[in-house]
């Protein structure tokens, strides 16, 4: 049965890679069809990834986000979903090209880490856990998408400021569009992240008897949350936008990655399901 799961995940990885390659071909070569290929393959990749995930959930009889392997895969899956949703509302297919490296890294990482299904300790079994995981991951996925947008913004802004008005300048979207999209990602991601933290806290009070226990993951998600809260506040009240907002989004994304990976790989605490 494991071979089916691995093949589905492998197919998703292959399609994400195809999407990235065709996306970059589009950036550097005048082939109008390349971008369509890129978009279609990321969509197809999502379908395979979703099948893999559902298959896994069926096997584990729970929301299959219980160990490192499943978290990586789930994060990539939600990031793809976030991209597809946002792209539907505000079409910017080239964003897929800039997000696909993240998809590839996480899907590949998932493929090389241990696939063993971790039996859940009874203490973790509750309705609140999957909710907490789903909300936090979804929030992080939108914020990671905003990171992709921020990278494109800084690249395009650099080209315009330095007056390099050729080549990929033409293929990249307008600054204003990018800034709006960055804001949209923040407005979607931040509330989800907030709800994720709240639901986690509720669940913690059932499972561990305390809402907040200052373990490294909790501390770092608070730091992340504060960063994005500051960004949202600045955007709403102080006219933060453009370059400044993009830089902060990137710092925020680094905090997300540290909360997500660094804490698990480097520090230990209640959340270290990896060990």
């Amino acid at each position, binding site marked *: 049965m494991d071979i089916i799961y691995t093949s589905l995940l492998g197919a998703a990885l292959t399609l994400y890679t195809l999407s990235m390659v065709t996306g970059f071909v589009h950036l550097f070569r005048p082939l109008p069809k390349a971008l369509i290929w890129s978009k279609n393959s990321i969509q197809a990749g999502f379908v395979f990834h979703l099948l893999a995930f559902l298959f896994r959930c069926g096997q584990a009889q729970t929301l299959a986000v219980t160990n490192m392997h499943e978290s990586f895969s789930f994060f990539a899956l939600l990031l793809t979903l976030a991209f597809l949703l946002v792209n539907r509302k505000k079409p910017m297919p080239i964003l897929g090209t800039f997000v696909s490296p993240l998809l590839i890294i996480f899907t590949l990482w998932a493929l090389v880490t241990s696939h063993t299904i971790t039996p859940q300790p009874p203490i973790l079994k509750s309705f609140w856990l999957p909710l907490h995981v789903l909300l936090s991951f979804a929030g992080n996925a939108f914020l990671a998408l905003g990171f992709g947008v921020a990278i494109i913004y800084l690249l395009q802004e650099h080209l315009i400021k330095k007056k390099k008005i*050729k080549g990929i300048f033409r293929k990249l979207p307008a600054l204003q569009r990018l800034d709006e999209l960055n804001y949209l990602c923040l407005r979607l991601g931040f509330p989800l992240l907030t709800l994720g933290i709240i639901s986690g806290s509720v669940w913690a009070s059932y499972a561990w008897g305390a809402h907040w226990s200052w373990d490294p993951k909790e501390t770092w998600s608070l730091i992340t949350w504060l960063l994005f809260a500051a960004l949202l506040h600045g955007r709403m009240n102080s006219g933060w936008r453009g370059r400044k907002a993009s830089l902060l989004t990137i710092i925020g994304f680094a905090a997300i990655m540290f909360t997500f990976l660094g804490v698990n790989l480097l520090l230990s605490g209640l959340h270290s399901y990896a060990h």
Partner: protein
Amino acid sequence: MHIVSLGLNHQTASVETRERLAFKSEALPAALQQLKEEACLSEGLILSTCNRVELCGISHDLGQCREKLINFLARYHQIPSEMFADKLYFHTDSDAIRHGFRVASSLDSMVVGEPQILGQLKDAFFIASESSSTGLILNRFMHRSFFIAKEVRTRTKIASCAVSVSFAAVELAKKIFGDLKGMKVMLIGAGEMCELAARHFVNQGVEQVLVTNRTFGRAQELAGEFSGIAIPFEKFRQELDQVDIVLSSTGSPDYLIGPAELSQALKKRRNRPIFLIDIAVPRDIDPKVNDLDNIYLYDVDDLQEVVTENLDQRQQEAQRAEVLVDLEVVKFEQWLASLAVTPTIKELREQIKEISEQELKKTLAGFPDLSSKERRRLEAMVNAISNKFLHHPINYLKSQDGSGESLPATTIRKIFHLTENESK
């Protein structure tokens, strides 16, 4: 049967000569009729734009073709042929095909890659086909021209970049603001280039134009043209926070706008970006403002550089386009060649059909009591024999891709006495 084209363009002839040889589009149907008669063309097409006058057609005798075409031009426009004959180019066969494809793809244009020529060619073809002066070959030739023009447009970057300063400014503004609808533009001073750029911006849907000038009357005049608002020169700095795009071209020896004014404006407009275009020499806007976040400053040299690079790029892309055109020329020649063998194939088939029908009739006359089923089987056998017999010669003919009258076709016609049959 040959494709021929004769004409002159912006490179070979002055605008006076082009004017005198131009055709009015309403007079084209009659001119086409005259062209076909006088130049002995079986199909004809006239393309007349401000940059070129071209006659294109299908001729069956190249000998006098060039002279006939020149005479037609001279008689039609009633000017002596010596006045323009040396400015003409004359292409036949594959050169004419290539020339037609290059014209359609805008590789032969004054500004390489400009898109108007394709529309003009389509109009010319429309008129010619309406007055039924085009036929099988020119129809296909034109359709292939439109096709290759589209190929060149999508597969090379030949037409993707602005080649004028004012249009380069519009293109940049679009990459900053995305959509120019609802934007406000301020014109400082009244240079010609500034005005042209403002006109481009208005075409792109900017909402409002503010105009300021040291002479308030001039500002009002210009504002009237764009149905905008005139602002006294002393007050324009206070309005900077209202506008998204600033076009400046005054004769001022000093900077009119510096980082201080713009920082203030940015604060008031909550950092919404401002795009400044400084067309003045000496400059009106302190180059330091480009270091401010959300401020984008381009001066006339920056824009000129963009334009020059774009022109260079067009030249490079034009070379890639030539390759695409060459490929298409080869394909079209193959089609023409296949056209040349088509009558031979047809006659060959008719000949054997005639023979087998005659022989079948004779044979069947000797067997009056054959059932209809048996008759049909005999007929089928004769058909099968003739088809199988012709299979190889026809394939051989089809595979030949020499242009014009192909040698194999001639040989086969001789072997099977096809010309004799025809003359009977």
